[in-house]
């Protein structure tokens, strides 16, 4: 069990069990990122490896990161329809550790008050904690605090860029490049903006290995390209893109880049300075934080030149009857009362993740993700989408798949009702991608660091039983 004490300036200091002796302090992101960069990410084990078979990998056995952290997540310890819950829908939303739940509860119990406006003790404390959370987000991705804008979620963050930056910077004929594997939130706002401005959307297809074709991307980048919108990690294909290279190519032609980091920030070290991205969005609820808050990172010089997105309180400097002047970023883009407790909860989530260490989380999830892939690919009549993992091909810890002649919704329903296994079925907000793959929907099992090898094993056995059932039924 990880327990927490807090010092005001340095964030949470966790008393870790013996298995987690290394403490990564929140304040020193640059050295952490350098350490990450000096050890290129690669799949440390694969099905083709002659090293320890994944099924026997000690990193996945008792004492694994999943086993150690699992007690911190109360929601995982329940039964669903008579079976122990196996939660494998983390790409949709992650579960919250006790530390985050307590942070939220403590806010509402001890110092709930509106921020940035009151002069009493409660308001001052709420403001300090809210801004401390902003600093934590900034530190987490190696940004400046004024470059972090709190939004309702990543979708709102992308819409902010679309309506604020997009409407004032895009002209007829300008090109916006998007991949066909993007989440709807990274496609629809740009369709709307393109319609309003006359800009043109161009889409990058997939390679035969079912990853976005960065070669094609490089070919279609031109001086007409004004923006590139891309995911870092695909929520369906599990592909991981070489964003630093892609961003470099985009900048060479004068284009800006918006990175959808919803599936990367919760699972790996992400350093916006190293990436040199212009915008980056993330969701709190996918990184063990509360729902209702997300964030936009934008380079200071870009944010300074952007008009407001929403108008109202907090984002103004002065208001007259016939006009208003606006605050500097980030306040300019945070109209109205924010999700204060939720932002503070996000800060607590970042503390929790940081104390484990994002590199450690990533390494463990890579092992477990490969184990999931290996076990799932050994099940008959299962087709997994996205690239196969190897020493050179990175794959996130999720698998979207279909079972021959059985609808994914039927699979997911039976897994839930009979086995207490929670997976996702549908199009995962990636309809163009599904259409390209020739399918209407798919099932998806997605992991996080609190999942264990046992979870994967139970899922696979439940899936086999499910397939047997529907096969017999037909």
């Amino acid at each position, binding site marked *: 069990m990880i327990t927490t004490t807090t010092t005001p300036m340095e964030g949470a200091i966790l008393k870790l069990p013996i298995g987690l002796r290394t403490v990564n302090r929140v304040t020193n992101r640059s050295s952490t990122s350098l350490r990450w960069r000096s050890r290129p990410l690669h799949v440390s084990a694969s099905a083709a490896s002659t090293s320890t078979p994944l099924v026997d990998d000690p990193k996945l056995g008792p004492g694994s990161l999943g086993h150690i952290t699992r007690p911190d997540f109360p929601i995982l310890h329940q039964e669903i329809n008579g079976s122990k819950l196996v939660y494998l829908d983390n790409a949709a939303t992650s579960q919250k550790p006790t530390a985050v739940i307590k942070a939220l509860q403590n806010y509402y119990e001890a110092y709930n008050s509106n921020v940035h406006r009151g002069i009493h003790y409660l308001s001052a404390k709420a403001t300090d904690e809210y801004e401390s959370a902003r600093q934590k987000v900034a530190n987490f991705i190696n940004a400046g605090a004024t470059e972090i804008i709190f939004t309702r979620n990543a979708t709102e963050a992308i819409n902010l860029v679309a309506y604020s930056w997009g409407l004032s910077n895009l002209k007829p004929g300008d090109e916006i490049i998007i991949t066909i594997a993007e989440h709807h939130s990274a496609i629809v706002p740009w369709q709307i903006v393109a319609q309003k401005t006359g800009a043109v959307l161009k889409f990058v297809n997939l390679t035969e290995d079912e990853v976005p074709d960065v070669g094609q991307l490089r070919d279609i980048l031109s001086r007409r390209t004004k923006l590139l919108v891309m995911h870092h990690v695909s929520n369906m294909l599990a592909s991981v893109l070489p964003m630093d290279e892609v961003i470099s190519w985009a900048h060479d032609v004068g284009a800006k880049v918006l990175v959808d980091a919803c599936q990367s920030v919760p699972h790996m070290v992400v350093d916006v300075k190293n990436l040199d991205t212009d915008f980056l969005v993330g969701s709190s609820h996918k990184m063990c934080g509360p729902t209702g808050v997300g964030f936009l990172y934008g380079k200071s010089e870009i944010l300074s030149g952007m008009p407001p997105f929403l108008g109202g309180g907090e984002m103004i400097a002065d208001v007259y009857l016939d006009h208003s002047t606006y605050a500097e970023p980030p306040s300019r883009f945070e109209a109205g009362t924010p999700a204060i407790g939720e932002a503070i909860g996000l800060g607590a989530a970042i503390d929790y993740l940081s104390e484990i260490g994002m590199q450690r989380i990533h390494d463990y999830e890579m092992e477990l993700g490969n184990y999931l892939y290996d076990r799932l690919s050994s099940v008959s009549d299962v087709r997994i989408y996205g690239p196969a993992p190897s020493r050179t091909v990175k794959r996130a810890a999720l698998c979207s798949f279909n079972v021959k002649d059985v609808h994914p919704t039927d699979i997911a329903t039976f897994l839930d009702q009979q*086995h207490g296994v929670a997976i996702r079925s549908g199009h995962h907000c990636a309809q163009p991608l599904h259409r390209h793959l020739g399918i209407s929907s798919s099932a998806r099992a997605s992991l996080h660091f609190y999942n264990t090898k046992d979870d994967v094993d139970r899922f696979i056995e439940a899936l086999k039983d499910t397939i047997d059932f529907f096969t017999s039924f037909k």
Partner: protein
Amino acid sequence: MHCKHSSLPFPLTISSIPTKSNPQFPTKKPIFFTSLKNSSTFLTISLTPTKPNPQFYHKNPIFFTSAQYSANGGYSNSTSRTTKTNLSSVSCLITEEPPLDERLSVVDKVQSLSLEFRSLSEPIDRVKRLLHYASRLSPLNESSRLQENQVFGCTTRVWLEVRMDNKGYMRFRVDSDSEITKGFCSCLIWVLDGAKPEEIPSVTAEDFADMNVGLPKKGRSRVNTWHNVLFSLQNRTQDCVQERKRALSLEDPKGSEVGVK
């Protein structure tokens, strides 16, 4: 006849003669619940099904009238009707075909359906019942699987045909690529097929809450496909009614069938 469980509100019988024939149901005598009007048939419902093994389905008794559970484990779908059998493994049973002397209302059918699914205490048994009803639905032709027939806003694909017959009753046909969804839809059109147009809006999603198999009960969403099917069915019924009124206002003496795609 009596039901074994004292909490049942009324005795039930299973009629093998539907109120109106629907070409989608493959057998000439599909199985439906009706409210009891005659005492010449009896039904026994076991409301205490054998506790299923949570791990493996084939250790669970299967609550289908036309299912054959193999003692060796495993499930086979037989279309043969069972007569009086070991009731510990069957929850619905046909013993006779009752004479049917009146048309069931939509309300009666909804109540019957709710009762049937409420009798299945384990969620997995509701899944299996839905799959059974799905198996009884013949697929739509490819010519009917058009985009204009597709119910939008669903995670599964559903095709719905809606038409009004010569006598002004509503007729429905449905198909889906998901067996569970097909099961829901099968029940839905059993309730509503042959109903008067004014009966169609009277049914709400909440009326089918007892059929729930893990789906959210409140609010419309993509996962509640059959909610979307119900809404689509109701909207398109309204379209049929409007179309019919327009046709009648032209004083078409034949009163031709009106279908809305």
